[in-house]
């Protein structure tokens, strides 16, 4: 149970949010985060400015209104005047409102132009929204990976206590160096998503087929958390964004390591795999990539997400099984995993689904080895 006093205290703070802003400089629970970048700070100031102007107009307008309500109560014998217009008064307030708006528009325009700037960055990263994860592709280096929610289903289902970063944690965050101009090329793979990191004041829709750009320049190392903000289906709330900003040296080391890992992965294709090894590896891949839809027990969530247990394709139709994983199903949430999984992972996850639950017993029990995936890729390329 949350303590009542904490709730009330927060509420009172929040109302005090009308007090000078300097009091709450860091990210707060009830105001826009100031953020870390130049743009985010300017946007914060703009936000406070506009809000204050509105508050003051409100004070004046409501002041006059409540004064009238109080002063001209019928119960105190107030007599109504018959005046029903006043030309100059109306002109005055119309002009006043216009001037205030012009005053707001000028700083807004300045900040907007700055935030918009779509020149190339020192580092250019392609951000692709998938149902329901993010892919990050570093255009200069040959690095590409997926970033999935790492909060466990048990936490979501309230079976175990929730961690500190409940729903704002991922298995592999985006890594960027500080003090570099980073440009994001944002797009979507299936439906529209929206990539948002409040501390950078970057929010851009990921529209399938088109590319939006955004940029940032982070001065401070740290972990910055954001979210998908465009309704994208069932797991819209479960595809957070996490960015790790690090010193340049750390970044360089990370790049080297990433590239080496990818190379090691490729070497695995040559290895001779046993069924048990494939199944074991496949389980890990399955838990990371497939459970969101087909569930841990393989039962799916019919009618939208079919069960893999007892599926004809998974039990008997090997060719089609590979094809579905490689190509996806157009128009369904089942996307192509060809670019998401290495050949090894692909082979092992298919093998896993063909061997697990009751499928191994009832189906043809065939396994798939990485070479088959490589062959499939070569065939399609022709």
């Amino acid at each position, binding site marked *: 149970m949350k303590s009542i006093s904490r709730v009330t205290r927060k509420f009172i703070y929040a109302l005090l949010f009308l007090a000078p802003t300097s009091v709450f400089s860091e990210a707060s629970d009830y105001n826009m985060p100031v953020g870390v970048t130049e743009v985010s700070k300017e946007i914060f100031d703009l936000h406070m400015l506009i809000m204050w102007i509105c508050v003051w107009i409100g004070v004046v307008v409501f002041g006059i209104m409540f004064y009238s309500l109080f002063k001209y109560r019928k119960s105190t014998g107030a007599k109504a005047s018959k005046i029903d217009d006043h030309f100059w008064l109306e002109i005055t307030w119309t002009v006043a409102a216009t001037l205030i708006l012009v005053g707001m528009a000028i700083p807004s325009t300045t900040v907007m132009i700055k935030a918009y700037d779509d020149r190339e960055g020192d580092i250019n990263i392609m951000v692709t929204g998938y149902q329901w994860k993010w892919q990050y592709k570093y255009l200069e280096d040959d690095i590409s990976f997926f970033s999935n929610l790492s909060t466990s289903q048990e936490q979501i289902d309230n079976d175990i206590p929730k961690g500190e970063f409940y729903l704002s944690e991922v298995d592999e965050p985006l890594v960027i160096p500080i003090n570099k101009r980073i440009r994001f090329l944002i797009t979507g793979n299936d439906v529209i998503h929206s990539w948002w990191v409040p501390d950078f004041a970057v929010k851009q829709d990921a529209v399938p087929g088109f590319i939006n750009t955004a940029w940032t320049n982070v001065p401070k190392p740290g972990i910055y958390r954001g979210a998908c903000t465009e309704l994208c289906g069932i797991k819209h709330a479960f595809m957070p964004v996490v960015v790790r900003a690090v010193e340049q040296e750390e970044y360089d080391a990370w790049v080297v390591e990433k590239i080496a890992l990818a190379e090691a992965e490729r070497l695995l294709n040559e290895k001779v795999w046993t069924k048990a090894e494939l199944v074991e590896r496949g389980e890990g891949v399955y838990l990371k990539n497939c459970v969101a839809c087909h569930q841990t027990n393989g039962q799916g969530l019919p009618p939208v997400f079919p069960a893999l247990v007892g599926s004809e394709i998974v039990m008997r139709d090997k060719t089609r099984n590979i094809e579905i994983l490689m190509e996806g199903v*157009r128009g369904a949430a089942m996307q192509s995993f060809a670019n998401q999984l290495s050949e090894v992972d692909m082979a092992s996850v298919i093998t896993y689904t063909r061997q697990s639950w009751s499928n191994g017993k009832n189906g043809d029990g065939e396994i798939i080895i990485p070479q088959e995936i490589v062959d499939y890729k070569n065939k399609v390329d022709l």
Partner: protein
Amino acid sequence: MSSPQPYYVPESSKLPFAMAVTMLVLIIGASTTVKPELGPFGDNSYLVLLTGFLMMWTTMFFWFSQVVKENNEGLNNNMLNNSYYYGMAWFIFSEVMFFFAFFLALGYIRMFAVPWLGGEGEKGIANMLWPGFEAHWPLMITPDQAAFPGPAEEMSLGTAYSHGGLAGVLGWIPLYNTVLLLTSSVTVHIAHIGLKNGNRKQFNLWLAITLVLGYAFVALQAYEYYEAYTHMGLTLKTGVYGTTFFMLTGFHGFHVCLGAIILTVMLIRGLKGHFSHDDQFGFEAGSWYWHFVDVVWICLVAFVYVM
């Protein structure tokens, strides 16, 4: 000083409710026809749709007969007639806005979407996703030829000319369609003048000519579609050129049909001796509608066929 209220307010009527139920049947019929899984009727879903249409035509028939009957009984005074005029005018305005949505879509696609996909303009970076795609209008090669194979040929005036010169232009169907429809606007006007002057013969004759022109238009349009589908590889599924082409001309054609049906009814009423020089709402509404489809057609020629 006050005038007694002359306005005719009909007693309660079963027709509107019948029409509402009809719409229910139509929704169910239409949805299950395009997606049989949605209902229990399976492959027979189209029968529900058909029933809906039958109900609709029946209800409309009784409704309009009722109005005509009231009119002939002299229940409609000037004010009520004015209501009908206002109603029709605003209805046409709503139709204008319906077409506006499709023209807006066409404009956006041509001015923004396609150029951006092809790497032009402020958002041209999108071309990274469609390597090799180039922006042209009419769009013959789509960004993803596998998903939406582009058309083999298209309908524009420019192409007709560049392929066949003057002969090409003379063989260009929209040219004849334009002539037909523009003429029919004039003939319907002549019919109108006839009615105003009490010249029933002129009215019937010129209205009949209008109808012939109108139906000829529909026939030519159907022929054009036939050509597109069978010989030009141009269908709804050939990317956004086919999409906008068929949707715009299709809805227009549909409205021409409606207008023609309305005017046919008016001709029948004319032959029966309805209308007089100061009582001709039904006909005028039909002719307004006819002029409206004419104007839409001119926009179509400009934006779909020529530009």
